[in-house]
């Protein structure tokens, strides 16, 4: 179930809270902060694929730490989106091996097809284009990831096909 975030009220679903508590229980009581990464992932899934400052504040509250400690972590990892994202987040690998196999052309193609730059959302709000570092599928580059799924050996044609399919979903 997706939750909406408002300025003041960030509420996790009961299921998410149960999951959060389970993670916290893995660590000693005075080191709740250790659970920060899985909880940020839960939060991101829970609140539309990104973590707003309000959501991060809520995570701080749950973990009994200062908001700044959450911001520090959330801004560090590219896996956490700090701005609203489209329905599908395309994370294109931009590391050396994929680049050698044409990731740069793929990115250019995506930019023109989606009408947005890396780090932005397509005009229809359906897609977010991101670049990420090596996803350990170097042999199958260029490649990208959407949620937990890899799409490999891509070229502009395959890419268009994929986007068409996704648009229909």
């Amino acid at each position, binding site marked *: 179930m997706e939750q909406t975030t408002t300025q003041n009220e960030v509420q996790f679903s009961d299921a998410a809270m149960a999951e959060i508590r389970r993670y916290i229980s893995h660590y000693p009581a005075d080191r709740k902060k250790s659970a920060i990464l899985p909880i940020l992932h839960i939060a991101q899934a829970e609140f539309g694929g990104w973590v707003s400052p309000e959501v991060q504040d809520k995570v701080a509250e749950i973990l009994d730490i*200062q*908001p*700044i*400690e959450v*911001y*520090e972590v959330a*801004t*560090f*990892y*590219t896996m956490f989106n700090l701005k609203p994202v489209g329905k599908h987040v395309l994370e294109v690998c931009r590391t050396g091996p994929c680049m050698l196999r044409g990731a740069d052309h793929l990115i250019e193609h995506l930019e023109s097809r989606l009408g947005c730059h890396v780090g932005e959302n397509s005009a229809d709000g359906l897609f977010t284009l991101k670049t990420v570092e090596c996803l350990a599928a170097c042999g199958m580059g260029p490649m990208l990831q959407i949620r937990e799924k890899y799409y490999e050996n891509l070229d502009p044609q395959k890419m268009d096909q994929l986007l068409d399919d996704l648009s229909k979903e």
Partner: protein
Amino acid sequence: MATIYIDNVPYEVKPGKNLLEACLTLGINLPYFCWHPAMGSVGACRQCAVKVFKDEADTKGRLIMSCMEPVRDNIRLSVDEPEAKEFREHVIEWLMTNHPHDCAVCDEGGACHLQDMTVMSGHNYRRYEYKKRTYQNQYLGPFLNHEMNRCIQCYRCVRFYKDYAGGHDLDVFAAHNHVYFGRHENGVLENEFSGNLAEVCPTGVFTDKTLKQHYTRKWDLTMAPSVCQHCSLGCNISAGERYGSLRQITSRYNGEVNGYFICDRGRFGYEFVNSPARIRKALVRTHLPEAVTKEVALQEIWGELRQARLIGIGSPRASLESNFALKALVGENNFHLGVDENDQDLVDLSLKILRKGPARNFSLREVETADAVFILGEDLTNTAPMLALAVRQSVRQQPLAQVAQASIPFWQDAAARELVQDKKGPLFIASITATKLDEIATATAHASPDAIARLGFAVANLISENSPVVTHLSEAEETMAQQIADALKTAKKPLIISGCASGSEAVLKAAANIAGALCEQVKTAGIVLTVPECNSLGLAMLGGHRLESAFEAIQNGYADSVIILENNLYRCANKTAVDSFLGHAKEVLVLDHLHHATTEKARIVLPAGTFAEADGTLVNNEGRAQRFYQVYPTPEDLQESWRWLINIGTSLRHPVLSNWKNLDDINQALAEADNQFKGILAAAPPAEFRIAGQKIPRESHRFSGRTAMNAHHAVSEPKPPEDPDTPLTFTMEGYRGEPPSSIIPFFWSPGWNSIQSVNKYQEEIGGHLHHGDPGIRLIEPVQTNLTHYFSEVPEDFAPLQNHLFMVPLYHIFGSEEQSILAPGIAQRAPEPYVAICEADAHALQLKEGNNLDFSLEHQIIRLPVKINNDITKGTAGLPKGLPGVPYAELPAWAIILKQETTWKHQPQIIS
């Protein structure tokens, strides 16, 4: 000692350090960024690379980071090897790719570690042609600018702010080439040591915002070695001037006192010197116009005081010389200490405790190395800030033993912190209210002064039965006392910290008993006592009568006139008493820098130089006499108080004062007159001191515009002003080498324009300055095995119906008289309030922000309530010295007034 070979030359160096420190100690230039002598190494920037070789036969070698490699006997390294040099050149080029190269408009320019290291590494031409990343800067409050584009990602700022100073609101965000150092949102940087970021950051990301308001390059400042005037610790500072106004305070390294840092009160409190409320001309109130020349003022004084029966009132914030001159002028029997009655008792007692020993009075440096600390009655962050910073380092001592055991050198900062995690050595705090250090304490107690003293006495008794027994302790108190006693007894270098802030003699005595008891077993036990002002201890050593007896002398007609030295009596005595005193005196003469309630009542006011316009000596809480130097010449009418007093003495044909001409004469007389001050002549070199026949210049050799800046007066170059009191000149001419440590106006060395140049002045990196740190200890405890214990254990505090026991609270920004006049500090000060606990508020039917009316020492006071549940029931916290909170001798009982009292205007005091 270990032998290391640097570029085939053998050197003897101390083992245990890293190669970077070893090279710098040897005077070899090696660039670095992320390493900082006080914070150790993390090996992050890769700037300090050198080559090491297996043996003589190895010609290839391998690159290592010198800051991460320990000194080993017979290690062979090369700084100059081409590959190492090239590597360093590349590193700086990479670090600089995004740097805006805006030195010309950057406040750091000319005193910038990044500039120095860039030049040193040989990166002269920029090749990067692409777009640079840019950031939005943040508002960080009144003290610091933020210009993130200049960041080179060395991580020093967060390491200082979070790890070293315990701050919580500065952090690093994001990653890669968009890493960001700042707050989570715009806002005031809260940590009390934030100003050090301006020195810790090697580039211009964090710079001094007060300097920006009257910006001057470092090389254009006239600078003098000085001593902070804003608390009793006496941190060493360098003060810089241009165009007759004070521009900047920076830390001045003293290996025994403040080390590399100072607090924000010390750094940003200076602006009172430039205040429009300064007294710049002598004033004779009965004269028209009031402002008169020096001659007229002296004539007037001669006329009035020639026949007068004179008393003098000294000041704990005036120099030893000024106080001594006044004492000599009016005579020993007529000299009164201008301090609060209770403070006088407390400082006298502190002095007695430090003298009688057997515990040693620790310097700040020694505090950092204590391995168990008990603080009684002090909120150090607010009363002696740098002492709080030293305590933050001391709690690392015990955990660091574990680091040593794992064979990790302590300067391996990341590894050491990783191993230690958040383990802390024993720190116990018993204070009136919660303090910032509580977060790192093993256990804390918030209690009334008497309860704090009882806990202290109980601890002393548990350590030595020769210290008196405390009866009727609660179970919790007994447990805590046991816990503290155990921790202190088993420590190698236990430390007791207390002071005058709680206003209680019993607290001081309890502290003395614990330190004494420890000395029966642990010979290295130490004690630190804070006192109220920068020269409180010096004044107490000088000695004089009470303020009350000054009031009596005038009242009884024993005396008729008074000279008041740099003192606002309304801050140390009851308003009615001061009104009546000043009203009854025939002649009131005040010497001070700024107008205040006391100067208002004086007929003659003489403009006294502040620390920036005067030379003098202060004795800090450790008993260390330290000299501060005039920064810039002033118009003749604005001069040191002691010089005014010599002028007055001369015009009155005083047998002693008429023979004095300069600072040395006074110090000579003081050393002869009083055995306690015998050592004072060694605090700093005399005025005739010369190196190669030359004086030491206050200005750098790059000082610009010295004729042009006076062109509106005259186009020919004026004769340089003389300085008859010190071995310093006010110009750029003089000896360019290294002066003795106490007269270093600024740190500078070829190729080292930033404050990091201090490396070149130290015996070893982070150690003492060459030929010893500035200042001389005037107090050494008696070495004895016999501890004399104080026996008077107080009763526990009991609330009184319809009364509140007023105890003093302190604010780093607000409680001190002079710094609060700096606009930046004033902005950080809280509004006046009275703090009571929820239960008391409830009983009085008051809520946060409601007014509480009470009568204290015949004054009726109204203040808004602040709920503070750490305040003991039946007591109330009154912020001491804060503007808007009237003076009262504290602690004291206040009578709660019926809250329906109607007020016409809402005045704060009605007497």
